[in-house]
């Protein structure tokens, strides 16, 4: 007899009962056979090998079904590369706190999916071993959505706070207390965008007029006060990219034409340093370009994705080479010719196990060894639009 009014709990018991009845029947008929266990779920090591990567598939053609894949980039085939997955709804952002050993997916849901309804923005917390949701913090439904920028979110005060850049188009940053897993409040950043953590408990935003705005937080995550830099770059004629190579307490921002603007972020008040060129005067046709055009490896070397056909409007076109720099000296140390045209850079690993990950123009992710730049393979993870790759190191 069917009972459509049964409670979920009762139904669950009935279901389990039916399953075990069936198994019992099979087993009684075949006393010698030992069935395989049902219900086993895989887990991962709580400390990932430091060459693993998190591949963020933005799923540009189905934005509500983005994913962050946990991947071993040195494994030989799909089955061994693909370790697991976190869902990431509506062109989400991703952060990872190494000390807390947690993944954060900053994402957006609608009560009626892609046709709308009530919007809910959350910081979803994942445990690295189980890839299960270990918590979530609801934040104001204002987070910026669009193409991926790593500094759309940032870990402030070590890993105490997570800042989430909002754009409604009013500009602000939501502060989340990761210790207590609760929303603290919003910090206004009028005219300025993003969250670049600096000093003890501050973060810096990039302003449309070419200045920087630094917000200083109190110990509870509320705004103490703010300071603004002088004009540091020409936001119209030679703007800095949103993504910097950060090493030794300095954020090295490439500009559209191929200069580098170093910003010391080691102290509560930032210090803008002198620009230098990625290119010699003979190389000005080479310009940085792509999605994530600048990164560093565990040894502090800087990597920039370079396009030989640089010019107005090429800043998202990606590049044919990755140029390697001693950032502190402002000197190029190597050029890596890419096997496939590159669009976005990431690194992972430490020591001799360092790797460069390049999302290529065909939406594959290419793996190169560092420092030599030897091509290893193109990943086979099934990601449709893997715009960003994050190292586990």
């Amino acid at each position, binding site marked *: 007899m069917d009972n459509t009014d049964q409670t979920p709990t009762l139904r669950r018991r009935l279901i389990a009962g039916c399953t075990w009845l069936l198994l019992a029947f099979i087993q009684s008929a075949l006393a010698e056979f030992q069935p395989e266990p049902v219900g086993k779920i895989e887990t991962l090591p709580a400390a990932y090998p430091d060459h693993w990567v998190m591949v963020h598939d933005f799923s*540009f*053609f*189905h*934005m*509500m079904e983005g994913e962050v894949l946990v991947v071993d980039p040195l494994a030989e085939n799909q089955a061994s590369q693909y370790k697991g997955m976190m869902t990431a709804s*509506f*062109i989400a952002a991703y952060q990872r706190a190494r000390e807390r050993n947690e993944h954060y997916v900053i994402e*957006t849901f*609608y009560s009626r999916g*892609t*046709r*709308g*309804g009530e*919007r809910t923005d959350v910081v979803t917390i994942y445990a690295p071993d189980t890839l299960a949701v270990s918590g979530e913090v609801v934040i104001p439904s204002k987070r*910026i*959505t*669009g*193409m991926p*920028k790593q500094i759309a979110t940032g870990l402030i005060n070590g890993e105490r706070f997570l800042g989430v850049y909002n*754009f*409604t*188009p009013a500009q602000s940053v939501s502060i989340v207390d990761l210790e207590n897993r609760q929303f603290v409040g919003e910090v206004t950043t009028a005219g*300025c*965008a*993003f969250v670049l953590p600096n000093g003890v408990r501050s973060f810096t*935003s*990039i*302003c*449309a007029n070419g200045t920087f705005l630094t917000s200083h937080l109190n110990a509870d995550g509320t705004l103490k006060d703010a300071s603004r830099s002088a004009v540091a770059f020409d*936001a*119209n004629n030679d*703007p*800095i*990219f*949103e993504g910097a190579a950060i090493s030794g307490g300095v954020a090295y921002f490439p500009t559209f034409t191929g200069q580098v603007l170093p910003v010391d972020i080691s102290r509560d008040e930032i210090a803008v340093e002198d620009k230098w060129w990625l290119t010699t005067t003979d190389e000005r046709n080479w310009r940085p*370009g*792509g*999605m994530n055009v600048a990164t560093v490896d565990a040894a502090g070397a800087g990597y920039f994705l370079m396009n030989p056909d640089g010019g*107005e*409007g*090429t*800043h*998202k*076109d*990606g590049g044919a080479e990755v140029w390697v720099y001693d950032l502190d000296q402002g000197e190029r140390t190597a050029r890596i010719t890419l096997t496939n*045209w590159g*669009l976005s850079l990431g690194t992972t690993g430490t020591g001799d196990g360092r790797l460069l990950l390049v999302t290529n*123009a*065909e*939406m594959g992710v290419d793996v190169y060894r560092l420092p030599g730049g030897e091509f290893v393979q193109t990943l086979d993870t099934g990601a449709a*639009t893997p715009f960003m790759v994050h190292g586990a190191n």
Partner: protein
Amino acid sequence: MRESNLIDRITERVSRGFARHTSRRGLLGLLGAGVVGAASVPLLPVARADQHQPQKSDIPEAGDDTTCEYWRYCAIDGFLCSCCGGSVNTCPPGTEMSPITWIGTCTNPVDNKNYVVSYNDCCGKSGCGNCMCNRNEGDRPMYNPPKSNDINWCLGTQSAVYNCSTAIVVGIAVE
């Protein structure tokens, strides 16, 4: 025999299929590398008659507004509404046009004037997926919002879900 032919056909179809979703230029655009010189195929009159009629002003026109090469798309980033049940300057049925946008300045090849183009997004249904197109003439980073096509401009609408992008001429650029 049939099976092996099927495999070939599927491989071909998949290739064609993705190409349909993302015009080659569009895909390159999405992926960042621009292509120049792709031939622009004019629409047949019969096809044009079937399409939604754009709300055009008296701007002189040339080119196919369902291709990424069309002049108004010089700073667009997204799915062309012309391929999604809308037109170059109208949204598909059941969507909502964003009231705020990013702005491009594009040169009309007929009169050689620079026009101000407002790329109002259409919002409230899933991404259309057809005619992906990205061009970045005058595009600036996200911290310069009025010039940034990286932002999802479905803002001030009931839903932030992005469906497609229009290209509406709102002015002539003063040099």
